[in-house]
């Protein structure tokens, strides 16, 4: 059989397996098997590629595959679930780095390899240009996002005068350079200049973005990685790359839209809004002066939880930070053993990436049937005896419903304020990432349990056990 045919069949098989893999993610029961099939598809594609007639030597390929596997294994097996957002960000960096490097090398070879380098066509330049533009923008952008999530770059929004003007101007110049190299494919300086400019833009675009906006940014970068891969497919004429790139691009795009909607903000607002900087909010917030909070002792909180018939737990990023999902599980078991019912209310943007809270709770064996989305649980808060808020802030802030002046006004929130009693686990009275005062904390039926969430939950558990 013709070698080329083998390769094409391999790519067709892997494309089908990839599509089936993504499709399986529509239900948690089928997802695992489906993704294992997708992994098989990847194996088929890699083995198939070895049969390509262009491939004449194997030592560099083998070295790369081995080094990559050695880096990938710990990234797959050892990263804790709480660190998932930065884990995803760093893999965007790797993915787009591969795409960008392939694009750069392809372009270089068109001008430097062979007896008479023939240069690039206009059409090739469209693909190569988009590939390196999206690629290098995502490499630095994702690295910045990872740094912010990991904490080696400040998670607060970094702003300076004329920031948006500078970014927009740089973006316009980058697009101009892209058009220029498409028209004049031989303009090598412009091509490499565009690579550098896109990389700088990646840094500057993520710099002003605060922690709470990370879900949108991660999704957006996900989409860019996909587009870079699809452009690579166009550049080297490979359909399986085009297909997977399109799937990934669509996925990232949909997630960004879902996340933006859950914050009642537009894309543009997230990218250029520099939310979480605090200053934007400063004028509009109602001051908390004159209001008092009601701290609660462990014993009293334990009493409320122990005798509650219905408890709704609202986890937020604080649960990931305190790494207290195991204690949450223990508390849940205890309440249920005493005859109470526990449900989990999960806001779409709780945490730092889409679905982050679900993964953490699944990790501690809380069945997914108990994890409720915002629309499914919001009607149940009035019946809840206790709503237990663990490290969530902006997603339960009633200002989103009744304070038109608030920067988060209009954002869909969990109706925690309708519960009969509310217990909030919180470190101190610091603001959420939006920098907004949360009126919920001052209500008469709200009790604040200050301290480290892990610590507090541990104490609650041992207290309830003694009852």
């Amino acid at each position, binding site marked *: 059989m013709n070698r080329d045919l083998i390769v094409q069949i391999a790519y067709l098989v892997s494309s089908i397996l990839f599509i089936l893999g993504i499709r399986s993610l529509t239900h948690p029961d089928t*997802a695992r098997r489906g993704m294992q099939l997708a992994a098989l598809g990847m194996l088929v594609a890699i083995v198939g590629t070895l049969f390509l007639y262009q491939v*004449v030597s194997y030592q560099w390929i083998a070295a790369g*595959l081995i080094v990559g596997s050695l880096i990938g294994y710990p990234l797959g097996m050892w990263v804790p*679930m709480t660190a998932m957002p930065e884990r995803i960000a760093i893999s965007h960096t790797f993915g787009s780095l591969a795409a960008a490097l392939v694009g750069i090398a392809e372009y270089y070879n068109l001008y430097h390899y062979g007896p008479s380098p023939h240069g690039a066509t206009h059409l090739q330049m469209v693909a190569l240009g988009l590939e390196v533009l999206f690629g290098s923008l995502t490499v630095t952008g994702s690295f910045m996002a990872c740094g912010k999530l990991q904490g080696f770059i400040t998670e607060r929004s970094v702003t300076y005068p004329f920031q948006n003007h500078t970014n927009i101007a740089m973006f316009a110049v980058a697009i101009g350079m892209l058009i220029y190299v498409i028209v004049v494919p031989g303009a090598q300086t412009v091509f490499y200049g565009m690579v550098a400019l896109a990389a700088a833009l990646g840094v500057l675009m993520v710099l002003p973005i605060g922690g709470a906006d990370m879900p949108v940014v991660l999704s957006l970068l*996900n989409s860019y990685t996909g587009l870079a891969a699809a452009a690579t497919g166009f550049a*080297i004429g490979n*359909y399986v790359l085009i297909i997977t790139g399109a799937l990934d691009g669509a996925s990232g795009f949909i997630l960004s839209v879902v996340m933006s909607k859950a914050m009642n903000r537009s894309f543009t607002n997230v990218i250029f809004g520099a939310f979480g900087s605090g200053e934007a909010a400063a004028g509009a917030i109602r001051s908390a002066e004159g209001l008092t909070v009601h701290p609660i002792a462990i014993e009293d909180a334990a009493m409320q939880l122990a005798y509650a018939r219905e408890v709704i737990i609202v986890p937020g990023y604080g649960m990931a930070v305190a790494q207290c999902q195991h204690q949450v599980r223990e508390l849940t078991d205890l309440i249920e053993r005493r005859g109470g019912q526990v449900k989990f209310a999960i806001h779409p943007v709780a945490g730092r990436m889409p679905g982050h809270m679900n993964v953490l709770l699944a990790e501690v064996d809380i069945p997914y049937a108990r994890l409720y989305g915002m629309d499914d649980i919001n009607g149940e808060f009035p019946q809840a005896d206790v709503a237990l808020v663990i490290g969530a802030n902006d997603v339960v802030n009633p200002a989103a419903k009744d304070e038109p002046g608030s920067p988060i006004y209009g954002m869909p929130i969990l109706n925690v304020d309708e519960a009969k009693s509310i217990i909030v686990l919180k470190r101190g009275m610091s603001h959420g990432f939006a920098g907004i005062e949360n009126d919920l904390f001052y209500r008469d039926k709200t009790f604040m349990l200050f301290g480290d969430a892990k610590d507090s939950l541990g104490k609650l558990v041992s207290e309830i056990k003694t009852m």
Partner: protein
Amino acid sequence: MTLTGFAQLYVFVLAAFVGYQMIMRVPPLLHTPLMAATNAIDAITVVGAMVLAGEGHGRLATVLGFIAVAAAMSNVVGGFLITDRMLAMFRRDSNGAAPAKARGMH
């Protein structure tokens, strides 16, 4: 535009439609695994990188190809492993102990 270029565009547009239809049906419950999964699948760029590293078109291209293979391969291995680890954790109900393999190791 060449016919090949046009065929490529067809494939891209159709795949994007398929992707849109499928991904709209992925529940928020699985959004994190979805991101990990698309990341893993997206590492198919390893195929392009392998050609670059193996076609012997000069030292620079080979070295860049090698780095690209390593970067993409780390996503292949790490991406599929972490997706599997996550998906193994999602259980429907609390009856019975979680399967032992659900802890991540096989």
